[in-house]
């Protein structure tokens, strides 16, 4: 009896596994006449535009030896304590400037900011930070506490990026982690301002996405383009592919490309270049590629990898902050028992006994 039941369960699982593969295969085979730039927030809908990618969309480029400064910006955020009705989060953003493969300056802004976010203060917190960065109040605010924390980090990143525009000059680069698509209401105001300032100073502003939501109907677009690019140029050429233009769209502040920055890398990245920048994209890619030959991060700009690792809030830091918070709580007459009661989570017990 038991054997027969197990056999049935196994057959069901097998069927589900096969269905999954059928689904993935269909995605890989899919081609569509539309491309979708998926929205990652509730504040905007996805952008759909015509798929006009052809052979002519692909171009090779040469890696440049020119000297210039290149800044990279990234941020990190983590929940440190979860009280259910509130969280204590930490976030930070940082930047560094490379000059000829060497670090010229490095800035963390600030080391880590600790923020308590509750259902009561989330709106106020968000609005304040938003207004400080963009200059006017938001039209909406996120409901989820963790999303508030992530937004605070995003504001910090853009604040750092804005400062970098002041510091850099003609021919220099600013790389940010992610696309140059406004995904928050009124973020376009900020983007408009920063992109215009960058253009004015002759700074190339570029967003590079580690993960992209660009897709065909269901299928991921990046993999498709990579396949096409390698089909055209082989596996040992740097190249880029221009994604069809929809510049009339008020969310988009970058011309979108998919680029392979190093001849030997297996990775390609969505890359957005400031839409106001009229420099030849091959020149931009050739210059960025200069920084993409680190043996560990082959094909990805090393400065972005560096700053990513620098600002990430890791387990050790979370534990340290949580420990210090508890110590201060004890000093303020919150007993250890109450502290544990406040943040206990039975998942922790479950996870420890897997």
């Amino acid at each position, binding site marked *: 009896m038991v054997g027969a039941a197990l056999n049935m369960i196994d057959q069901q699982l097998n069927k589900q596994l096969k269905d999954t593969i059928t689904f993935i295969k269909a995605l890989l085979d899919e081609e569509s006449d539309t491309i979708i730039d998926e929205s990652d927030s509730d504040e905007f809908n996805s952008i759909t535009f015509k798929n006009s990618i052809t052979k002519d969309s692909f171009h090779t480029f040469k890696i440049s030896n020119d000297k210039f400064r290149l800044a990279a910006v990234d941020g990190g955020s983590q929940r440190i304590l979860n009280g259910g009705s509130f969280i204590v989060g930490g976030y930070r953003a940082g930047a560094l400037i490379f000059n000829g*493969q060497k670090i010229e300056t490095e800035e963390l802004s600030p080391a880590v900011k600790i923020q308590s976010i509750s259902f009561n203060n989330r709106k106020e917190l968000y609005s304040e930070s938003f207004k400080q960065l963009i200059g006017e109040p938001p039209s909406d605010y996120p409901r989820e506490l963790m999303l508030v924390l992530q937004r605070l980090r995003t504001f910090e990143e853009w604040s750092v990026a804005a400062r970098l525009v002041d510091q850099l000059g003609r021919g220099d680069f600013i790389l940010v982690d992610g696309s140059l698509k406004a995904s928050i209401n009124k973020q376009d105001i900020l983007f408009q301002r920063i992109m215009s300032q960058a253009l004015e100073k002759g700074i190339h502003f570029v967003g590079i996405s580690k993960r992209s939501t660009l897709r065909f109907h269901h299928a991921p677009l990046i993999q498709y383009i990579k396949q096409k690019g390698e089909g055209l140029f082989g596996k040992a050429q740097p190249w880029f592919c221009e994604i069809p233009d929809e510049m009339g769209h008020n969310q988009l502040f970058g011309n979108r490309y998919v680029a392979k920055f190093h001849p030997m890398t297996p990775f390609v990245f969505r890359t957005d270049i400031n839409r106001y920048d009229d420099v030849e994209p091959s020149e931009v890619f050739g210059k960025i590629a200069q920084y993409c030959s*680190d*043996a560990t991060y082959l094909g990805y700009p090393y400065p972005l990898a560096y700053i990513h690792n620098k600002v990430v809030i890791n387990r050790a830091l979370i534990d340290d902050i949580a420990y210090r918070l508890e110590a201060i709580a004890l000093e303020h007459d919150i007993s250890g028992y109450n502290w544990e009661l406040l943040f206990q989570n039975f998942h922790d017990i479950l996870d420890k006994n897997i």
Partner: protein
Amino acid sequence: MNSGVKMENIDGTQNNGSSGRIIGRNVTELRYRTPYNEDVFLGEILIAENDENDRRFLLRVFDIEYGAEASSHDWPERTAGNMLVMEQSNHSFELHDKDRRLFKVGVCSPLGYIVNTTEFRKPKTIPPHFSRIRKANKDDYTVLRQFMGDIIIGDLRSGEQVVPFNVGVRGMDFPSHIGIFATTGMGKSNLMKRLAVAVMESGRHGLLILDPHGEYFDGGKAEHRGLNHHPLAKDRLVVFSARDLKGAVGGYNKIKISAQEIEIEDLMQLYDFSDAQRDAFNSAKRIYHENWLMALLEGEIEDLVIDLVGTFEGSIGVIKRRLMNLFRSKILTKDKTISISDQVYDALVNGKVVLVDTSNMGEAEELLVSIVLARAVFERNKRTFADPEEFKKLPEFLITMEEAQRVLSRIAPGGRNNIFATIAREGRKFKTGLCAISQQPKLIDEEIISQFNTLFILGLADKGDRNVLRDSAKQDVSQLSNEIQMLMPGEALIASPFTPFAIPVKIHLYEDFIGSLNQNRGAQNNSSKTEMKNDEDVDRNLGEKKIDDGFF
């Protein structure tokens, strides 16, 4: 404590302070992180210190590992894979910020810690977290001075660096026995020569060197130097040899052993005799008394069969053949007035080095000389022990035995009762130490080797040999396997209960050492207003100065 203060290294260069930080582990093993471009060597001696207390921990590096700022353990494999791909496709690549991303991890054994500048304690605790690591300097080594003996043989070694800090063993510990173990070419002979002249310079201990290879008198080769080249050789070196020696500054004596000096038990340690043959020896001794040996050697078989009642002709034939074979080089004499044993013993009692060169003898003959002398010295000391006043006056003796596995293995003739095994077991009480020299310590009886308190461990290629020393050393050298394996010629570890840890040493190269003595002598001649009449005066003057003023 050294909080970022610049200090002077032992070699006079500036010590820029911290070269690493402790990252953890336990009381028997400490690990520290150091920049990737910082050289770390096996055997290097380091200091761990902190601002929280005044303890300075002495650490010794026993392993070195790679480290990288990467949370995934396969980071190096992936990165190396990318490098290979790029090399194969002729593309250039970089590895940015090596200083930040790469590092080394030094794995150390805590040797002990220094408190109040002069007190050295065993490491029963650990340094505070993230203690600073720096290279040891002059001040740090000063605390070890109290453990260094009067028989200087080299300089302290820290990794590949030779530290100008003399290392020596105590002559008073000679009776606790010494083992010198090394593969051929790793510096056993050099060490022995350096040890011998240190004893000559000390003048307070007796050293008997049994030299079957003829390498100690003049070095054996034109480019080498021997004990005879030392300025004190004339007064402090007494040489016996069966071959002709040229240029002996103090002259030399021909090896002649009186038949009366040889005991039956000496012969038993050379050959395996049957019970019947042993009976024949005992009968001969009973009948011919002190002339038993010559009677057996020179008597006619027919006569001996009659005298030694109950002994078969065959047994006597075997004995005679062996004895004739043994004494082919004519070192044996009937002259009762000659006693090499007495001459050797007298020299040793007077704190001299006695070199017995047996290089032109067959192995059995050479062993016989060694056995007779070792037994004579041991027995004399044993007899003197009965007279406490006289015994107190005796200096410590050390008898060296080359290829010691021949006489100290379980299967050696005479077994555990041969004279060398006896000295190893009982010599300590009678101020008689054994210095066993061997390239195969694993062949030496475990019980015997455990009697050796001081081990000079030089380069040993064989793992079995290293394991034996690890198990028998009086210091825990189990963490030093890598270092022992990597020892270069002339580099050694001295493990003994008289030092707080196994001391890494670079043995003075004997030729350089003798050269430096001659240079000193030249300088002394130039600066001295006193006219020296001849070389003899110069030598004597130098010798006196060394002994009285503490040359080292």
